[in-house]
């Protein structure tokens, strides 16, 4: 017995650093891609497939493409004609926002992206201030600047909004609005009061059940029938409310599924500490439940982001619709592929960003709890 053989009072074995794991490209390749016959075949097939599929796309989109010019006449090569995008660029970003006022959009977008970066970069300090700014400051500033009509800024009606700025506005408002609403609905659905529960269930199932298109259709072209004569609502506002209610129902179900997975003991422990219902939810249950369903929340955010295109129904042009509308211009008939590819890229970049950030969050919030 080695333990017995040890000197009794100096038996301490010093803590050693762990053995360094093997490294190097070859090791990586061997373990990750070619660790067995099946794996190797899969790897090779995949690599071939990637080359077969991706190369023509690169060739078309980058190598053979035309980049500069001002009209379709400048597109001479076989590849993509990005001239369409470059001539339409400002419209894709600003929609129909008046030329002379676009600096206002620039400020808001600049502020928006700065805040996002600030919130997302883990190393930057002052997260609380940034969050406050993003949730309170930015909306006010955006509202004043974008809409105008005060402080000597000319009024820009929401009809003139469009393109990326509209997409981002709707998505941001939708995301920021639907999450808390969804949480409240989810809690309501699990409430012990039968009527509150019934109303939340009805609300959720109703909004989950109807297509957003018909909701927007009703809210845009039929709303004047539902409200007393000469009551006027801004169309964008209607869309925002519709989108928020619609997606909050989805969010509620995501949150509910998270709540279902939380151990009852957690709530009891909170109660035993004297925390009231709301504090218990806020400090104990929701943080865990929401963490659990981050993928579902991001699913909803991504779906919401892409669904902003539906505001075309109410005559507003988001990125996709404005590209589509541009394609109907008689100068640019027949460039649909470029337009659609570019639209896909724009959506992809934003959604991918959200997706990556959420995965980063999942990893960061992992506290190694194993029960």
């Amino acid at each position, binding site marked *: 017995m080695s333990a017995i053989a040890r000197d009794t009072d100096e038996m301490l074995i010093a803590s050693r650093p762990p053995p360094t794991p093997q490294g190097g490209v070859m090791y990586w390749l061997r373990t990750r891609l070619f660790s067995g016959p099946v794996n190797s075949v899969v790897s090779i097939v995949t690599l071939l497939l990637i080359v077969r599929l991706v190369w023509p796309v690169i060739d078309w989109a980058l190598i053979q493409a035309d980049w500069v010019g001002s009209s379709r006449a400048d597109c001479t090569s076989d590849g993509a004609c990005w001239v369409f995008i470059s001539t339409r660029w400002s419209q894709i970003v600003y929609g129909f926002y008046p030329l002379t006022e676009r600096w206002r959009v620039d400020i808001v977008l600049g502020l928006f992206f700065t805040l996002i970066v600030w919130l997302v970069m883990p190393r930057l300090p002052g997260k609380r201030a940034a969050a406050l700014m993003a949730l309170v400051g930015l909306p006010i500033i955006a509202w004043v600047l974008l809409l105008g009509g005060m402080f000597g800024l000319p009024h820009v009606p929401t009809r003139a909004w469009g393109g990326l700025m509209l997409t981002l506005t709707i998505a941001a408002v939708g995301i920021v609005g639907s999450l808390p609403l969804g949480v409240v609905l989810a809690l309501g659905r699990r409430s012990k009061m039968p009527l509150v529960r019934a109303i939340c269930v009805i609300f959720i199932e109703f909004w989950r059940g109807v297509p957003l298109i018909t909701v927007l259709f009703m809210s845009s072209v*039929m709303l004047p029938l539902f409200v007393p004569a000469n009551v006027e609502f801004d169309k964008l506002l209607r869309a925002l409310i519709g989108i928020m209610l619609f997606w909050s129902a989805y969010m509620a179900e995501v949150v509910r599924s998270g709540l*279902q997975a939380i151990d009852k003991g957690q709530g009891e422990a909170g109660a035993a500490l004297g925390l009231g219902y709301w504090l218990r939810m806020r400090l104990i249950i929701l943080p865990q439940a929401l963490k659990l369903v981050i993928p579902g929340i991001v699913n909803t955010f991504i779906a919401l982001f892409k669904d902003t295109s539906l505001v075309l129904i109410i005559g507003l042009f988001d990125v996709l619709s404005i590209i589509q509308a541009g394609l109907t211009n008689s100068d640019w008939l027949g460039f649909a592929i470029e337009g659609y590819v570019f639209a896909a890229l724009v959506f992809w970049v934003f959604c991918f960003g959200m997706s990556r950030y959420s995965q980063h969050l999942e990893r960061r919030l992992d506290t190694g709890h194993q029960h």
Partner: protein
Amino acid sequence: MLRPSVSIPRRGRGPLWRDPAVRALFFQVMLLAMVLGAIGFLIHNTMTNLDARGIRTGFEFLDHRAGFPVSQTLIDYSSNTSTYGRTFLVGLANTLLVSALGIVAATIIGFLVGLARLSPNWLLARLAGVYVEIFRNIPLLLQILFWYFAVLRTLPSPRQSLSLLDSFYLNVRGLIMPAPEAQAGFMATPLALAAAVVGVIALAIIARRRQAATGQQWPVLPLSLLLLIGLPLATFWMTGAPLEWSTPELSGFNFRGGMQVLPELVALWLALSIYTAAFIAEIVRSGIQSVPHGQTEAARSLSLPGRLTMRRIVIPQAMRVMVPQVTSQYLNLIKNSSLATAIGYPDLVAVFAGTTLNQTGQAIEVMTMTMLVYLSISLIVSALMNLYNARMSLKER
């Protein structure tokens, strides 16, 4: 001592509004009043406004002749004689068809991709990740267009159709197959199918009994499949194959006779399943991750193999997290099927809320009907899933 039938009320000695029962009642009555009030207000307004604008309402239009053709009809329909009411049913059937196909496919792909994302095989996990990131992050409309034109581009024109046995043809107009026409005596085959279904159920029960008694496990799935396919087929041949096939023939521009699977349907189905599967995959992943690690460890220490651990331990518990969200995805898929209009698949929105609405101009009726239909489909799906969810929920103290 038996449990008292009525638990003794313990009214708080504090003020009345502190009593939770009183409080709950008050809030609930308030809420109900508000909701009812809002609904009444809306209805009243609509009626006055309709009156004031002299807009005709009513459902007589459903009996008027529609007069436009629909490219895929699962039920009898003819542009000459059928009514607008019929277009509603035709569109509904098409929506249900593509939704059902999509839900099945999306569930399967979604589960596989979600499991693959957690696979220890690095490449598989990475591929699944790429799948999710690509198909989740691009608008569905663009994906539908992509698949549609990708499908169309790879298929030959009718005259160069790929053909099999001179009765199956594949071309840009779709897959054209012989259509069966039942003759006398055909009824035996469906009856045989029903018998097979009963047989499968019996088989499952017997297999279970047998397992209980001897521990032998039968390959129930293959046996059931054999039964389900074999029995009707055998009956069919034995009764003398009482089916006439109307074989398609190329005449003029197109094939006539036979039945056809439209490329629109295939493209829409592909796009819907692939897109929704990306979402389901993420839900599956989060569901599986929500199961405490201790559960897997316990299963492993009982030496359950990996697949069984997944099936018996992890997935049943992951369902709590997955079911409400997957329900949402099913509902989304059903609703997203209305993007069909972009590629000319005649679903409910395209046929009824599109063409019919435009011909008749009766927006309120048409939109309400459309909304109600989606709502009912959704409620049915959601009710079924909630039932399942309630069964999955844990028994706790």
